[in-house]
């Protein structure tokens, strides 16, 4: 059986995918936050 290895999130550009997903989700919330008046 192969040994367990951690995925290098930098080498796999995983963090960049997370950033983009974060932006796409975040922009919806950001727009809703802007549209709500205090």
């Amino acid at each position, binding site marked *: 059986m192969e040994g367990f290895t951690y995925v290098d999130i930098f080498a796999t550009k995983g*963090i960049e995918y997370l950033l983009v997903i*974060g932006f796409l989700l975040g922009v919806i919330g*950001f727009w809703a936050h*802007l*549209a709500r*008046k*205090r």
Partner: protein
Amino acid sequence: METFTREVKRLVPFLLEELKPKGKVLTPFNLISGFIIVLGLILIVIRFAKGLGAVTNLSQDFPWGLWIGFDVITGVAFAGGAYVLTFAVYVLGAERYHPIIRPTVLNGFLAYVFYAGALLLDLGRPWNVVNPIIGNEFGVSSVLFLVAWHFLLYMLAELVEFSPAVAEWLGARRVWKFLSSLTLGAVIFGITLSTLHQSGLGALFLMAKNKIHPLWYSEFIPILFFVSSIFAGLSIVIIEGTISDRVFKDQISPQHHATYEDIVCGLGKGAAVAMFAYLFLKALVFVHGKHWEHLSGPMGFLYLAEVLGFVLIPMVMYVEGVRSREIKTIRAASILTALGVILNRLNISIIAYNWDAPVRYYPSWMEIEVTLAVIFMEIWAFRWVVNRMPVLREPPEWARGEHDVTAEMAKG
């Protein structure tokens, strides 16, 4: 022939009357700005008579200085409000911004004329400026070829967009009708051009990979330039609107005054969303380039100051200002944002360019003086037009009452 003679007889005395100054001449602003303009013109004559070295600190290591970095690259980013606003009004149908379309398009047109004109000051052989148009072995794969053509075409597009106001000023009804029918096409053409030349100005730096500090250089500079031009333009529209609201308040109708707060909040909202996207793009570029070790040291601090102090903080201010409808907060955010765009453009073109060179570039007082002269000349031109043509004030009855071709086509 008779109509032509009659029109000439009407227009000539009218134009001579319009050439006279409106309002007080010897105001503190006129005296100070007039002195700066005159001195700037003298320096421009010296520059052309004796060469760039007589007036600037430019060199082979630093061929682009304040005139390109600020006048051209920052100035064109600031003129981005025109394409953003025309997109909002004519494509998205956001009619509530219609009252500010004319001053924004005028501002954008004058910005391109004066700042692209300032480009002539920086050319070693300014008589070659026609080469992108006539050929003469000018490289068509050069980004500058694209930028040159785009500037020319965009100035023409903005002139067509603004031309109905000129026709209203001259009382030329038939010409007004024809020009109004061209507006929508000119707007769409202008928006298309803008997306490319705003990013094209960033693309000019793609070849300088070994010269620009890694924190600012990336293959995504064109996209960052384009996105930042959106909130740069909107911020300048807010600043210009604030100043015009005070200086030209007698021209603005009570109806438009009432919508001012709504307009500013809307512009702030647009700027905040663009800045949100920009921050994520900056983070993406940073992570992609693995720039962590560059954050220490003076350039790292400058980078963090630019991104956090002049993008993140004004974005938060815009959000707070829009949510609580605090116009003062939105105005403060617009000033910080504009300063941030200036810092970003100067970082890429001057400060982080050849940042490790033993001899650094600093603009001479003459370069700063000429830059101020160009800015004040643009302000004088803007004021001249606004005081005479229906830019802030309502158009004449015949232009209001007649079928608004542009609005109908935009709705259709």
